């Protein structure tokens, strides 16, 4: 290990990555562009949906015997074309059929608003029409009972019994953190992973494909330092990608969800506190440290970019795993979970959105990640120093991956 070599390789790798349009696009442009595009699409579709449903009307058949109050209400509603029908059998079908029919409920005589709604619930129109009818029937029933109550002389208090209200005691910041905690950790892991993915493959398999690996290995630098420099550059790009994506996502989520939820009467804050920002940086460092090491190790055997990608894919899939555990809110960032790689970073990120993280689990997670990284880098370094790895299928003959992994460092000493 020597510092200057690591620094030089690191600088060179980063410069190369920044000059490659493919790489910069993957870890800078896409995060900045993707979320606003999704946001725009979401808003556009929502507006179109609104506009589309504004002037839709449903054909509703009214069967004989339906509560006249409800029938009158149906005929008065602008979104319903009401017709008298003999039975409820004619629903569905694109032709002259009804979207839904409303008929009397057996045994509901004399009571307001009761009805049986028939509709083909496998069609969108049928389902929406049934929903509209149900809402109207409820209203009619409530109004009818109010009249009944008055005519019977029952007091309002006696009838209402009590009013039910609910109040959410979670503050705007708690709710903001909660919502972000549902959305962020999974995508965060994927984004860190993508950020590492392309740089890792480019720095190992891509280098071999371009033929620069031999040039690099023929210099006086030792292999572990070369690897360490590459590793650091992959780590930095993974972190950059993870943090940029997270920031962009928070901005877009707050832009779309903030106003949406405010109109529902909830003030939700998506502000990120400095403590949480620190934890997020720490989490992205943890995750990209681990994924970079695993990806470099798994792609260092590949002969070209495409093969490198295929080999790194399992690691990429591994980063999706925490999504499963995120479903269970009772699993939190604690002493025991902090030792589990990948999961610890996702949990730390989620928990830091709602409150400060404990120092002990953070230390544990750092130690456990460091151990995993060292193991992976050791494997990568020993793979890289294998001649079969440096010149696959060339001077040293073609061997299968299995025999390569099994084989000793040098056949002569075997």
């Amino acid at each position: 290990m020597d510092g200057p070599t690591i620094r030089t390789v690191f600088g060179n790798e980063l410069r190369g990555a920044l000059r490659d349009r493919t790489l910069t696009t993957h870890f800078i442009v896409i995060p900045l562009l993707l979320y606003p595009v999704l946001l725009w699409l979401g808003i556009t579709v929502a507006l179109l949906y609104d506009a589309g449903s504004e002037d839709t009307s449903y054909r509703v058949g009214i069967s004989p015997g339906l509560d006249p109050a409800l029938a009158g209400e149906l005929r008065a509603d602008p979104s319903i074309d009401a017709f008298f029908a003999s039975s409820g059998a004619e629903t569905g079908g694109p032709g002259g059929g009804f979207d839904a029919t409303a008929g009397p409920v057996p045994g509901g005589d004399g009571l307001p608003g009761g009805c049986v709604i028939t509709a083909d619930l496998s069609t969108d129109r049928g389902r929406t029409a049934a929903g509209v009818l149900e809402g109207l029937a409820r209203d009619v029933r409530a109004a009818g009972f109010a009249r009944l109550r008055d005519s019977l002389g029952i007091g309002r208090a006696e009838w209402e019994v009590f009013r039910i209200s609910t109040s959410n005691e979670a503050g705007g910041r708690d709710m903001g953190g909660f919502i972000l905690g549902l959305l962020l950790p999974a995508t965060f892991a994927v984004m860190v992973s993508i950020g590492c993915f392309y740089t890792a493959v480019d720095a190992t398999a891509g280098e071999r494909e371009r033929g620069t690996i031999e040039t690099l290995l023929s210099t006086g630098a030792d292999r572990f330092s070369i690897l360490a420099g590459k590793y650091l550059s992959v780590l930095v790009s993974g972190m950059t990608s993870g943090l940029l994506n997270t920031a962009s996502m928070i901005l877009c989520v707050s832009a779309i969800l903030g106003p949406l939820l405010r109109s529902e009467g909830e003030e939700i804050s998506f502000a990120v506190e400095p403590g949480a920002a620190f934890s997020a940086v720490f989490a992205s460092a943890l995750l990209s440290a681990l994924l970079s090491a695993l990806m470099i190790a798994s792609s260092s055997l590949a002969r070209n970019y495409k093969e490198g990608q295929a080999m790194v894919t399992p690691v990429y899939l591994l980063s999706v795993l925490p999504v499963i555990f995120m479903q269970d809110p009772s699993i939190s960032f604690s002493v025991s979970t902090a030792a589990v790689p990948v999961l610890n970073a996702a949990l730390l990120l989620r928990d830091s959105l709602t409150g400060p993280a404990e120092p002990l689990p953070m230390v544990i997670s750092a130690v456990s990640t460091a151990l995993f990284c060292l193991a992976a880098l050791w494997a990568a370094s020993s793979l890289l120093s294998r001649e079969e790895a440096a010149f696959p299928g060339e001077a040293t003959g073609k061997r299968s991956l299995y025999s390569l992994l099994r084989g000793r460092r040098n056949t002569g000493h075997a």
Partner: protein
Amino acid sequence: MSENLRWTAFLELLGAELRMLFRDRKTLLISIVLPAVLTPLLMFGSSKIAETREEEIAGDTCRIVLSGNAPDSVISAVSRAIASGGGPVSVSLADSPDPEQLDSGLVHAIVTADVGRRPVPVVDVAYRADMDMSRAALDAILPRLEALRDSTREAVLSRSGISWAPDSAMIRIEDTAPPGAREGSDFGRLAMLFVMLLLLSGVSVAALDSIAGERERGSLETLLSTGVDRGVITASKLSAACAVGLMSALVQAADLALLARLGFFETQGGGFLPPASAFSPLLLVPVIPAAIFAAALVLFVSAGASTFKEAQLKMLPALLAAVAPTLVTLFPGIGSAPVTRAVPVAGLAVSFREILSGRQDIAGLLLAALSTLSLAAILAWAAARSMSGEGIIRGSASPEPGPAMLGRRAFQVYGMIWAVNVITSMQMERLYDVRTSLLVGQFLILLAPAVYLAIRYRLPSRTVLRLRSPGLLAPLLALPCAAGGVILSSDLYRLASLLLPAGERVLHDFGDAMTTGSTDVAGMILLFCLIPGVVEEFVFRGVLMGSLAARRGWGPHGALVASALVFGMFHFLYFRIVPTAFIGILAGLAVLRSGSLFTGMVWHAASNAVALLAAREAVEPVGLPLWGHAAAAVVVVGGLLLMGRGRVRLRAGRGRGPGSTGGRRGGTASA
């Protein structure tokens, strides 16, 4: 080449493609076998965890605190109702419960029954929406309170001799659909999305590398140097990709279906799959055009890239674009409209869902297949064409900064500006007033990057940005033309709204935002007309159109249309895109005809002013008689023609006169 030879060549190539693919076992293993193993595992783990969590919540005791000044009878009734509903619930009474306990999770809900000034007591349930035990407590309490109320009402009514039943018994919904149809229709909402994703990922394994990779390795040149024509090459690559895509999608789908049948993963609702009756062989009919489309799309992307890496990069937007139409089934209003059948991919998604819900609309299915296949054919044709183009082997780009280089990057750069614009404008609307956010948007977000681009790429100010004097005639002509343009664009808007209707409410909000604000006329004109006119013309007609025109194979008119579309996109709301893009085209034409960006600025500012005036006075161009619209068209076309004439004279004048300024003056004066 004879038909027979073509056919032989096709089969030979197809065989070679497939053989090469199957020899790349590592790729096949990782991109097809691995997901087939991992996806069920992920789903299994996920459903297992959800299940245990639900069991945990069900098994855990709900700790509820009850308090309030309501009469003891109410309190004890509420307490009994909550405690009696089954499940582990503990209710304790407290005089003044501590909300802190709720925050710390010691208590899951605090129920307060208070009597205020009104005669009816209020039962309030305080909970925390961000804690799931607390949400579970709320879910348990609410129905119990409602049941208590229902039973009290029933008692009250029965005293008057009237029987009573709750809403749930009196309003019933009966489904007339055959059994399984509803589950099929629910499943069908996202089914095509998954099919498309499976197809695209399978096809990518085979096809993403097939043109770009061959180009990279140099074998494309070898292939093209043989006697086989490009159509045959494309067809064989397409067939290979299609076969692999279909195969891998079927493998994955069968894998999932089998494991689901075996009960490998099951959710509470009895599994996410509809009954077997929903699946019919007819389902393959929309899948095959979808596979062909996916293969054509991936080949198209591959043909447009010079390396595998680049192809991958371009695949992401293509993937989003291909998958987005399948979401049409999520929106009842749009999904059931007959027009959607004619939209490629979207039509297939609708048909697929129809078949899953037991309906067979053959005509719709055929229409959907036809429209999707036509798009696939266009994509395949474009892929074949790009193979034969000059840039086939490798387009070497000029490394010098200039309009051509910016032209190649323009969409990416303007995409970024657009994204920043979207985010900041939404945030700013909340923080600042209209005036500030408009100024920040115009100067910081639009003008500043455009000026930077103009300097960074050394755009020539006269030839590319067209910053030169327009003379007198063109700006003068632009004034009436702009008014005519506004009328025409409103006609166009009404035409476009047949396809993309705008909701009344949104229009109202939008109109309010336009007209409210300051009443200061000079300020309004500066803010809404002059500044946007100058800034946006520089940004879109100057920098964007100028650099796009320098892009290879684009020319001024391609650049005009493309820059106008981008200009439309910057107006964010979908129903404004078409009319603003039209205004953009008109202003761009004015710039091209008169040779000066300033004409466009005048046009744009005047156009905004006319629109603003109409909105303030509530004048609708719809109200104009037919001859009004015709006159508008005549004015616009005539004005644009005259602008060009002025420029021709101007050139002639410049040739004659010794000084260019003198010549230009002479030219315009004589016009």
